[in-house]
């Protein structure tokens, strides 16, 4: 297939200002691709923040899903992109505690950012992805497997992405490659942001670097659904891509 030939690809990464998303943006940029990175922060100087010239950042706060999708579509248009080769919808947030204490606002916020925004964005990206059979990779979480008492709504939003991806993969089978990737616990700043101190448990978490590498491998392979566990992380150590590859 032509799309596996090394060349400069156009790649969108949401939630690219921190954690796994930031590592993905840098890794793809280092291989020569053109990256549109999005997040909720204001960034004054893209070059200073990302350290690479081929990453363009725009602010697109997913807590307003419709506006975020519009801003991203506008940015791709302004960049003159005619097609999108890969979209990694990674931006997400969480809340932790007794689900009975979770307020309506917390519930709504997580659903908007983690589920509605990627859904509306997928819809906006369709026409760009269809041009050359691009890949749409949604980032879930292994929390969906057994559910998570302390992250009930977060786990629900990620399960929503799983159900969405499964059905959309079938709907778009001849036009774009939809996949869902579920990372296991990873040592990013995400837990601290939601007020969770991991303590010793951190030792059992994947390093963000390893998780990002494993996610890239899963995207190259194009499995419909992939759990990025520690085992898969180890297995991805030598799975390096060359210049111009995804």
């Amino acid at each position, binding site marked *: 297939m032509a799309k596996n030939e090394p060349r400069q690809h156009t790649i969108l990464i949401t939630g690219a200002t921190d954690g796994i998303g930031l590592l993905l943006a840098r890794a793809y940029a280092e291989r020569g691709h053109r990256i549109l990175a999005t997040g909720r922060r204001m960034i004054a100087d893209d070059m200073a923040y990302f350290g690479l010239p081929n990453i363009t950042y725009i602010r697109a706060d997913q807590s307003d*899903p*419709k506006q975020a*999708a519009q801003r991203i579509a506008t940015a791709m248009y302004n960049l003159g992109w005619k097609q999108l080769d890969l979209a990694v919808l990674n931006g997400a947030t969480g809340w932790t505690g*007794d*689900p*009975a*204490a*979770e307020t*309506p606002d917390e*519930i*709504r916020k997580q*659903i908007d950012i983690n*589920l*509605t925004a990627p*859904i*509306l964005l*997928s*819809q906006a990206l*369709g026409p760009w992805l269809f041009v050359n059979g691009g890949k749409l990779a949604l980032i879930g979480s292994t929390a*969906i497997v*057994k*559910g*998570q*008492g*302390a*992250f*009930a*709504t977060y*786990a*629900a*939003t*990620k*399960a*929503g*992405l*799983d*159900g*969405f991806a*499964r*059905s*959309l*993969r*079938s*709907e*778009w089978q001849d036009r774009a490659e939809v996949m869902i990737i579920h990372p296991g616990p990873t040592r990013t700043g995400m837990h601290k942001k939601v007020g969770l101190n991991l303590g010793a448990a951190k030792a059992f978490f994947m390093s963000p670097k390893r998780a990002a590498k494993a996610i890239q491998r899963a995207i190259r392979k194009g499995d*419909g659904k992939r759990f990025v566990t520690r085992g898969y992380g180890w297995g991805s150590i030598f799975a390096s891509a060359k210049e111009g590859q995804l």
Partner: protein
Amino acid sequence: MRALITGAAHGLGRALTEELLEQGHEVLAVDRDTEPLDDLAVKSRGACSVQLVDLANPNSLERMLVGLWEQKFDLVILNAGISASGKFEDIPSAAYAKLIAVNLQAPLVLASGLVRRGAMNNKSKIVFISSLSHAVGYPGASVYAATKDAIATYAKSVRKPFRKHGVGVLTVFPGPIQTDHADRYAPPGAKASRRMEPEVLAKLILKASTGKTSELYPGLTAYFGKLYGRFAPQMATKSMRKAIYEKLEDPVY
């Protein structure tokens, strides 16, 4: 026993309400369209009270929660649900926002709100209605499928924490039901006879809600659908594609 049913005016919600009243229980029946419930309210001589709530509207939802503060329930069935069927790209984003608000946001806000406010009696139960799509996928209604998967995992997640508050959780995964909902969203030519009667399903759900079951796949279609989805997930989704997606005509939302 006192029960709360959302989406009580039609279909499964109506059947649940009627069955509960028949069994001599009290029901607070909630819907955005309460007129069809008026006859039940009169006939039940006060056992059935009716409340107008638009679950798509956060303010309406919050008003309801605040108004419930002095009531206690033994059974809450979060039954209200809508769909949007058609090719993913053919449905306007506003319809998706509403779908997610009604099918996902509302049940989560209600469940956690009821438990937090102490509106659930000890040894009470909350019932979430997911869908057989959880097992087999649903090309042609991918955002509906998203909401139903999300509900299933939420229910799984809160089972333990809610138990600490004396509240049990049951999740139901119904296959096609013989209701207006199914008529509205099913592709043309789909066989109505294969769908389960809402009265039959209502009885199965109420029976399960009194027991220890945490997940109910009601009837043979749901049972075999679950097995099919578990052992051959990709084939199951392919079958759904053939049965639904490839027969879609105009989107319905």
